[in-house]
């Protein structure tokens, strides 16, 4: 474990905590995307490139797209409501970062005894672009479509909602 890993894990904890504790949905989504990106890097570091690719597709691309489209459906909070909401979230989730830190410490000291199968696994591919283009091109196309879908959701729904409010 070198310094880079420590930095990555710390960043992960920070961004995840921020994701949970912010009262603004859009920020939460951005936080989620960042968290996923960091996680992907950690996975590459752990020589699990495929898992990394999945994480990137799902959590950095797909889920935010879904969430953004979902947010498009919601009503925006009024400015005066926001601080109260923020207070409430902090009150509810303050133990979360503490627990997270504790868990990291515990798990690094005493790893869990799970008997996993001796997976032969695919030969490690370190080159991300090779992996994406050669191993999972279909997923990539789907990712593109998903992003576009999210975009259309925003275009259509936000506009619609906006128009109704006018």
């Amino acid at each position, binding site marked *: 474990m070198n310094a880079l890993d420590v930095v990555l894990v710390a960043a992960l904890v920070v961004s995840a905590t921020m994701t949970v504790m912010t009262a603004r949905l859009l920020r939460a989504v951005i936080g989620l995307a960042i968290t996923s990106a960091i996680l992907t890097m950690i996975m590459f570091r752990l020589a699990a490139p495929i898992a990394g690719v*999945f994480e990137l*597709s*799902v959590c950095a691309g*797909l889920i935010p*797209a*879904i969430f953004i*489209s*979902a947010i498009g*459906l919601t009503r925006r909070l009024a400015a005066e409501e926001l601080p109260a909401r923020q207070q409430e979230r902090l009150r509810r989730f303050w133990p979360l970062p503490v627990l997270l830190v504790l868990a990291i410490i515990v798990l690094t000291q005493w790893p869990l005894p799970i008997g*996993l*199968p001796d*997976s*032969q*696994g*695919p030969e490690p591919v370190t080159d991300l672009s090779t992996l994406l283009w*050669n191993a*999972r*091109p*279909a*997923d990539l*196309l*789907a*990712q*593109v*479509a*998903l992003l*576009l*879908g*999210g975009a*259309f*959701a925003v*275009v*259509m*729904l936000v506009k*619609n*909602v906006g*128009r*109704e409010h006018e």
Partner: protein
Amino acid sequence: MRSLLILLPLAGLILLNLPGGLLAGLALPAVAALAIFEIVLAVYLPTAAFPALEQVQQLLHLSTPLDSLARVLLLSIGIVMLASLLVLHATVKAQRRRFNVANVLLISLMGMNGVVLVHDLFSLYVFLEVTSVASFVLIASSGEDTGLEGAFKYLVLSAVATVLMLSGVAMMFLFAGSTDFSAVAAALQNNSGQLLLKIAIGTFGCGLLIKGGLVPFHGWLPDAYQSAPAAISVLLAGVVTKVSGIYALFRLGISVVGLQTFSPVLLAVGALSMVVGALLALRQNSLKRLLAYSSVSQVGYIVLGLGCAGMGGPAGKLGLAAAIFHLFNHTIFKTLLFVNSAALEQRTGTSDMSVMGGLGSRMPITSTSSAIAALSIAGIPPLSGFWSKLLLIIALWQAGLYAYASLAVFVSVLTLAYMLTVQRRVFFGKCREDLLSAREASGGIVLVEAALALVIIGVGVLMPYVMNSFLLPLKGGF
């Protein structure tokens, strides 16, 4: 050639959105052309037309031969997409919205095609999500509150499904080291006693059951179907849930885990859906909601057939054939019924049956086609629905599942009951005063209605041909 099914929608999407809106006017025709292409491809699959395409195919990992099941689904997707487009054309007049919806339809098309074609659990999952996302957008596309609510419920339950499926994929990946169907299947075979794998199958399956809207995973479905705009509910009911839930379940069972491992679950869930859906459909005022519950019920039949397939033996094969056949039939008649509902919505402005009555004399084609679909769904011969139900019942009986067979038979009475309620309240009867001015729906809708009704009758009457050239090979095809 198949790879085009995924590539072309994407390409189309990009072309349509070229800056300047040069090709924006071609949105609907483009989707229609793709749908027709898909139908042609499903019926007549050309072999290695272009070497270049073959390479793309290999690149996309789509080289595994296309089985009959996939072809049935492709055919259904094409047909329903076309129907949905025609309805869209008839019901949505605003150019901008048409264009947007057409774009999302393209995404949906690509997603569904991907689901049908891929041979990788993770890819399957991703394309499921593509389809779902497109669906959320489409359901909410009217911008009305009910649409948002329906989309939201779908979204929430889809999230649950996502969690379940992803965890399932992860666990399987743990053992197989790959998510390719054959690799996972081999891993499952080698580690049959593994607790984790069983949980994985369970969770992945449940995710699909949510997508398919089976009881008790169906909570989102009535709201989504009811609140979606007419054209979208056609698409959703006709094919989206079938592809994303039921087809995936088929695929999982046939190509990956082996149906026998969870056939009791399928039988129980199928039977429960069948009964609960039918009972709920009995007392609905909204035609679309009624049809939604009817979908739950009919999907129950399909899943029941799938469960029967898990019993193995010739009966199992027959059950599978029956399930696939019913899947196709259900696609056709449910699409037709939703198109009918769109026609009614077009002319009466609502899908509330309590304000309709006696429209049969005003809308003869809608009325007739809806009667045909209703009878078919209730399994009345000689229409198509009868044959699939008959095969299903024969299969269940021969598999020794007597109780399920009897249940399947008698739920048909309930089915007929609610379908007759629709006929009575909407079409059959004296025309209400305030509806005397109602006219037949516009040309595109009528065309779809007539065509689909003919398909129902044709499949029913030409059953021998269908059976010999299509179903019997299907039975032996796995």
